[in-house]
């Protein structure tokens, strides 16, 4: 067994990458607290039943499972939104809350080409409903991406209500609907058509479901989608998105926005608007969010909620360039010069100048400047 290696899907962040990560997290942390969000650190271990219980919100295959001393099944934190929903529903007494976090989540099924330990930064807004709250979440998501320095991005917006509405009266079973949702998410119109024929959906629903994979683009797709259905819930979802778009216009954020009604995220989890942040240079989403009004109720208290998470590693890939190495002086203490060296070190720190203290043995690593030498006669060289 080679103990110096790491299991698949996890890795170490070395100084350069870690500096970039912390720099971005610092900017986000400032943006979160400016907007009134309070940070939480949630437990790393949770009960399996918290996530698998009713209508499993996290797939079983995605969780790292262990057995606790009392025989109960526990998991490594698989999802931050659920953890925050649990906190908001069971531990905070207020009806409204704004939480944010910087945390790793674990995905057992990933690995090979995907990370099993994913650094996320996110916010959750509890107790707010309506188009304005949704527009704010989208606008704040755009602000956060801008804040870390990503210039070239779009926020792609959808709404699970349109799909849910079209399904009503379609005659499709829940299983068939879930199968078709998968095809729609892959924009696989071929299989949507085959599945619709096989399961025999109503004609009106067929037309809308077949069109879903191509219902993406500017705000005009909302009108296209409206022409395809007369279901009140589906039309309500479109009217809601129009309101959100109008608010985004007032917030000056509509330029970051596109629509995709064929992005139908998990129905067990999301209840309304869903959105995804796409950055120019990265082939995978950097941000994912949406409304999940039903989640808190699972923990005993019904709270409306909307939020998003940024995948920090992908966000850093979108940035490309690494932040510069901060300047740092070095004080090298030769035998007899320890006292003078210590005093200089304290003085530099007191002046707010970063400084590292070295003993004489060995070379000072690259990157430290200036390098002061402390000897018996005080500071003897620089």
């Amino acid at each position, binding site marked *: 067994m080679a103990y110096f290696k790491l299991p698949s899907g996890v890795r170490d962040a070395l100084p350069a990458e870690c500096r970039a990560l912390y720099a971005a997290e610092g900017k986000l942390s400032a943006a979160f607290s400016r907007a009134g969000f309070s940070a939480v650190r949630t437990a790393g271990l949770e009960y399996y039943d918290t996530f698998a219980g009713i209508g499993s919100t996290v797939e079983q295959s995605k969780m790292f499972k262990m057995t606790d001393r009392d025989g109960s099944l526990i998991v490594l934190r698989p999802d931050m939104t659920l953890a925050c929903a649990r906190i908001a529903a069971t531990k905070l007494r207020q009806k409204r809350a704004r939480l944010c976090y910087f945390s790793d989540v674990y995905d057992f099924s990933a690995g090979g080409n995907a990370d099993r330990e994913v650094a996320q930064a996110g916010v959750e807004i509890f107790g707010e409903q309506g188009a304005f709250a949704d527009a704010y979440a989208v606008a704040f998501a755009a602000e956060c991406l801008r804040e870390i320095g990503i210039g070239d991005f779009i926020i792609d917006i959808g709404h699970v209500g349109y799909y849910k509405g079209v399904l009503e009266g379609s005659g499709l079973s829940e299983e068939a609907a879930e199968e078709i949702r998968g095809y729609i998410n892959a924009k696989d119109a071929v299989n949507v058509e085959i599945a619709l024929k096989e399961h025999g959906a109503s004609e009106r629903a067929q037309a809308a479901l077949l069109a879903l994979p191509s219902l*993406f683009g500017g705000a005009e797709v909302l009108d296209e989608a409206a022409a395809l259905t007369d279901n009140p819930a589906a039309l309500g979802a479109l009217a809601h998105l129009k309101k959100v778009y109008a608010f985004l216009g007032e917030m000056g954020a509509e330029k970051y926005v596109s629509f995709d009604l064929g992005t139908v995220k998990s129905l067990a989890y999301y209840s309304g608007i869903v959105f995804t942040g796409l950055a120019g240079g990265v082939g995978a989403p950097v941000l994912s969010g949406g409304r999940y009004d039903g989640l808190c109720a699972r923990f005993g208290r019904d709270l409306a909620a909307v939020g998003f998470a940024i995948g920090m590693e992908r966000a850093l890939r979108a940035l490309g360039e690494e932040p510069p190495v901060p300047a740092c002086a070095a004080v090298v203490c030769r035998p007899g010069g320890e006292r003078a060296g210590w005093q200089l070190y304290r003085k530099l720190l007191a002046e707010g100048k970063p400084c590292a203290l070295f003993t004489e043995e060995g070379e000072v690593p690259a990157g430290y400047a200036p390098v002061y030498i402390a000897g018996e006669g005080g500071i003897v060289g620089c």
Partner: protein
Amino acid sequence: MLNVALAKGRLADSCADLFLRCGIRAEILKEETRKLVLETPDKRFNFFFVKPTDVPTYVEYGIADIGVAGKDTLLEAGADLYEMLDLKFERCKLCIAGFPSMRGVQKPRLRVATKYVNTAKRLFFSRGEDAEVIPLHGSIELAPLTGLSDVIFDIVQSGGTLRANGLVVLEEVFDISARLVANKVRLKTKAAEILPLLAQMKRHVGEGI
């Protein structure tokens, strides 16, 4: 500029014909060359030649914005990407085949030789059948002949190889054809380039087959 992942060989030729019909200067795809990256003269397209099974990988990672791959490859790779268009060429079927004596036979643990290990496992799992999936890389038909497996799970085009070895199609499972796939992010961030191309390809698909 759009980066396009293509599989070398027949698939690339059919793609070249379709691209040419769409007014893309893809004549470079017809040239004999050992280059792996080819650019159209107007610099609008950059073609990568990759192994067929690697097309989904290049597209999923966003190295290529779009690509053309067989549905069999897509099923097997299970990559997270958009499947935009059925190009209707390179049609064949993914079948279970074996000796005629295997017709209707229920075996407690069927041995299945295949290149499509993931797809076969998913298929038999979804049917609740217990199958031993034996991975092979080529000459799949040899497996039942030599007793390595009971049946095979493979693409069948003309059925010539099956017939020559005394095997028959036992079940046609999936219809296969070439598909245009797109990276999930690039479809949106390069929509101005990809969408007109898609519309054009949609118009010309099915011609000349």
